[in-house]
């Protein structure tokens, strides 16, 4: 009779209610927007979906999305995979460089990389300059193209692939490789016949994961795609929402298509990754497989690692440094060396708005990360311990995985333009969107953390007379802290890294760093953009290193699935 006094059920109900209020309205709003006509008295209609196929080159847009996501997935798998294997499984020199590049890129907003790459691969960038110097005519690289989009997106994702595949290679069973080597197989034969096959389920799962994220990618399609007249689903949504008047029906219809596509892919992803874990038979033995001796090829492998380090990290940063020191934009040149100026840095430091928006970013990301980890601590623990309503809580918390960032931006904006809660144009609305979007990550961190704790600790405390809250406070919370801190830092980092969620929600009074960089680019303040971007990268790199050491210490390896 007094069920409402059961603290476990009560917690489930409260957490469940909060999650439902956060997660469900955006989804409802999207579906509703896609089937209601615009205007004063909306009626049910399928015309928005019909428009996708007739007007606005809808089919072409969908095809572009798939080509773009597929191409960049393959490229990032190739780069990241080779790097991961060299670093984890061989005795190549300079392996530390790959880690440095990864950690720094974890702290840099994507949009900053894209701006740098647009310059580097552009008509006056060093690549085309070199080509012309060698006697070529015109441009070798045409960055404003589908090829350019795939190339840049592939570079953007390769550090994450490196990180995730590295974990797979590290945990791989080396027995079979040893056997192959002893039987006289060469390194290449062993890799091809054993290592790759063993890692294949993990590679496939990762490929699907990167593909899903690339479907939702916004930075590259916006900055590289739109000038080339190549629209993908995300830019089509953005375009129809930033027109005057905005076309909500069309945007929602595209968004629903995207959510549907992502849901189907996620279904396969969860099956694949469940499969992938089955293959990791030897985890937890606590030993490291013997690295392959590459012999004379060691230095070639080291050269490859160095090249990757230069291309993925040093070149973009150098480009930003160069742009930040010039009075007007120009290619790398000796003449430009004479006109170096610190004006842009002075402007960034003196103008009040940069400090303000940096503070905004830090506050809203920290706030969102805290709320997520708090909610996730309860929801994740209840779900992992199969408490009352655990499955429902898990599903609710993971629901937002189906939202690409830009879609969530549209949905959250429409929800909070309609409810009488005056938070549009404030940091609150961005914070809410972050909480919705990154809740699944917090959930994963807590879930994985709880599974590492044996339940007998909690049972022992219970037997000794500790109540529910005491167990949570004295046993679970302290032991979960490393996973929670790692999760918090990770969410803090990606919230500051992604542009797509906030781009439609940020207002002049509630600017965040990634959106500010995008705005500066659109507005034509390239010099200040580069100066601010570099300073911001330095700050975030500090946080990224903190995260990196924390997650190594906490033994949690979750980077965004």
């Amino acid at each position: 009779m007094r069920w409402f006094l059961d603290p476990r059920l009560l917690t489930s109900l409260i957490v469940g209610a909060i999650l439902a209020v956060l997660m469900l309205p955006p989804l409802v709003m999207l579906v509703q927007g896609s089937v209601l006509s615009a205007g004063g008295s909306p009626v049910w209609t399928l015309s928005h979906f019909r428009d996708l196929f007739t007007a606005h080159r809808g089919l072409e847009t969908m095809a572009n999305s798939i080509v773009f996501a597929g191409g960049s997935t393959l490229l990032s798998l190739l780069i990241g995979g080779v790097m991961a294997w060299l670093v984890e499984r061989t005795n190549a020199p300079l392996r530390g460089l790959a880690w440095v590049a990864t950690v720094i890129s974890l702290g840099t907003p994507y949009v900053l990389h894209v701006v740098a790459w647009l310059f580097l691969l552009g008509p006056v960038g060093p690549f085309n300059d070199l080509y012309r110097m060698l006697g070529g005519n015109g441009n070798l690289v045409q960055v404003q193209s589908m090829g350019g989009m795939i190339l840049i997106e592939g570079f953007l994702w390769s550090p994450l692939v490196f990180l995730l595949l590295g974990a797979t290679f590290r945990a791989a069973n080396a027995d079979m490789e040893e056997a192959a080597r002893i039987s006289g197989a060469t390194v290449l034969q062993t890799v091809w016949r054993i290592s790759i096959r063993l890692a294949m389920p993990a590679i496939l799962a990762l490929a699907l994961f990167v593909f899903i994220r690339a479907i939702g990618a916004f930075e590259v399609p916006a900055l590289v795609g739109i000038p080339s007249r190549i629209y993908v689903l995300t830019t089509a949504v953005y375009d129809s929402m930033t027109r005057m008047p905005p076309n909500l029906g069309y945007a929602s219809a595209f968004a629903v298509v995207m959510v549907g596509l992502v849901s189907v892919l996620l279904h396969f992803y969860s099956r694949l990754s469940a499969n992938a874990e089955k293959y990791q038979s030897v985890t937890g033995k606590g030993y490291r497989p013997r690295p392959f001796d590459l012999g004379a090829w060691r230095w070639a492998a080291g050269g490859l690692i160095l090249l990757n380090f230069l291309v993925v990290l040093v070149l973009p940063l150098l480009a930003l440094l160069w742009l930040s020191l010039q009075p007007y934009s120009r290619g790398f040149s000796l003449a430009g060396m004479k006109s170096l100026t610190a004006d842009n840095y002075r402007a960034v430091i003196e103008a009040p708005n940069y400090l303000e928006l940096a503070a905004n970013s830090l506050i809203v990301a920290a706030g969102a990360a805290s709320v997520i980890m708090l909610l996730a601590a309860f929801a994740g623990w209840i779900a992992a311990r199969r408490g009352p309503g655990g499955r429902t809580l898990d599903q609710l918390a993971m629901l937002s995985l189906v939202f690409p960032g830009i879609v969530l931006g549209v949905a959250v904006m429409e929800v909070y333009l309609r409810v009488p809660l005056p938070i549009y144009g404030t940091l609150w609305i961005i914070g809410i969107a972050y909480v919705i979007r990154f809740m699944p990550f917090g959930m994963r961190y807590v879930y994985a953390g709880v599974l590492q704790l044996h339940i007998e600790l909690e049972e022992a405390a219970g037997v000794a007379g500790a109540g529910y809250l005491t167990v949570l406070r004295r046993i679970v919370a302290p032991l979960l802290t490393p996973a929670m801190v790692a999760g918090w830092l990770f969410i803090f980092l990606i919230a500051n890294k992604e542009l797509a969620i906030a781009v439609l929600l940020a207002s002049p009074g509630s600017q965040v760093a990634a959106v500010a960089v995008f705005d500066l680019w659109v507005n034509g303040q390239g010099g200040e953009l580069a100066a601010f971007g570099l300073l911001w990268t330095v700050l975030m790199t500090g946080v990224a290193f903190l995260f990196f050491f924390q997650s190594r210490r906490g033994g949690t390896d979750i980077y965004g699935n």
Partner: protein
Amino acid sequence: MLQPLKLLLRAPMLVFLLAAQAVSPAHAAGADAALVAAATKEGALVWYSTLIVNQITRPLALAFEKKYPGIKVQYSRATSSDVALKITNEARAGRLQADVFDGTNTIDPLQDAGLVEPYLVDAAKSYPQDYRDKAGLWTTMNVYFLTVGYNTDLVKGADIPKTYDDLLNPKWAGKMAWTTDPTSSGPPGFIQNILAVKGKETGMDYLSKLAAQKPVNIPASQRVVLDKVIAGEFPIGLMIFNHHVAISAEKAAPIAWARTEPLVATANLLSIVKGAPHPNAAKLFVEYVLSEEGQREVAKAYYLPAHPNVPATVAELKPLQGKFEARTVTPDMARAGIDGWTALYQTMFR
């Protein structure tokens, strides 16, 4: 049952409307002490600008803050349609933040939505008639002349475009860039100019030939396009503000503007948001920007002031002194035609 309730709900609205009728459009007596006091009490204002921040928005805001130390100016820059969209959304959400906005076509949708506050600016009394709206919805803050900009390292001598027809030369195919800004200061302004100058039939013929040249759409401001021309990414930029060229040329950038006549002349209009959270600070700011003092700041930034008594820093940027012909798109023309021109741009060039 419902009728009385509705009436009851509307009553305050009616009172408000009547009150608004009684006081507006108000004629403020310049930046008088009462206005300054009321504005200082509000302590801040928010300006949604379409101007380039480091060139003019920031210097103007700082100059205003210096003159009125108690009032903080918060500014941000976006495209015309973004500014209009943000203000519309804020109104929908019942939480207006913007006090003042500017832009070439920003006002059109906002005026339709009833979001513009009429205010006859005292400081602009001496402005030419067509620089200010009779009802006080907008006042011209600076004028623009848009033309072809070219990189002087890459385009020399006989290659420099002298007429619009020179842009159809096959050697410029894929080498011209312009903004995607859907205003009369962007491609729609170019299109209307061609149609007006060449007539509908020849004009459309010209536009389809230009579309075949595939000018690159840069989803950013005219300033970004110019920077790309300066950097040499494109030898030629279309719909470039000639004063932007002057700003960069002063820093020794390899850039010049061509006299493809008639140039497109547009105006940047300053307005106050209806229901602005800082109405007095907004008025004071508008008075300041349009005063001789404010207009001198505009000129100092190399922009072309609207005030008849304030000369431009580079006089040759204006038709009379620069001896070039320009065709003006008045706000009324823009309001009537912008949808059609934008539609042409969307179908032919995107």
